[in-house]
């Protein structure tokens, strides 16, 4: 069965320090992975997806199939990066299209001054 693991419940870093939020997955198919973010008092929103290979707000994530990982990285943390981050694996729904997300438990990132 598919599974997403985020080993850290809380990650605290100083402003300007590098950030790495860990995500490992287990899935027998071809993985489609996402990072979602939830800022305080806001809704869950997509941060980035692996197929786009983009950098959003300075964050990047590389899919490593050998290590089954999709870690989120940023070279210099900013105070506004403080939020809850969820790694999610997308599973296609075979009937009718669509995809269901399997989430990790989330990592709370706290950026301190």
């Amino acid at each position, binding site marked *: 069965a598919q599974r997403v693991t985020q080993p850290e419940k809380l990650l605290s870093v100083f402003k300007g320090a590098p950030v790495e939020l860990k995500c490992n997955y287990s899935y027998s198919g071809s993985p489609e992975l996402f990072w979602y973010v939830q800022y305080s008092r806001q809704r869950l929103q997509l941060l980035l997806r692996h197929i786009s290979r983009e950098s959003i707000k300075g964050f990047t994530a590389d899919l490593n199939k050998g290590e089954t990982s999709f870690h989120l990285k940023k070279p210099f943390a900013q105070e506004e990066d403080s939020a809850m981050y969820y790694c999610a694996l997308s599973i296609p729904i075979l009937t009718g299209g669509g995809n269901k997300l399997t*989430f990790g438990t989330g990592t709370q990132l706290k950026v301190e001054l």
Partner: protein
Amino acid sequence: EAGVTQFPSHSVIEKGQTVTLRCDPISGHDNLYWYRRVMGKEIKFLLHFVKESKQDESGMPNNRFLAERTGGTYSTLKVQPAELEDSGVYFCASSPLGGMVYEQYFGPGTRLTVT
């Protein structure tokens, strides 16, 4: 463009009562999903609609939960009778139809507390 909306934002009910949660997806989004996060656990998929048809309800916990999407617009999720373990945050998400993997747009969630 209005985002996904959910009502109510918070509901407190007693064990054994009935509660109905509502989700209004983004206009034109035929895919509609329900998810749930119970305290300390991950966000879990409940079910998926395409228009008014249920496509995957493999995540529904038991038959006390009933989801509908009459007319293919808004959806309701009814819990009857509610149990203590049903407490959590219920999220709705929507996305357009298509063959590729699309971003899901989430609502703010409904926090359900069963006492």
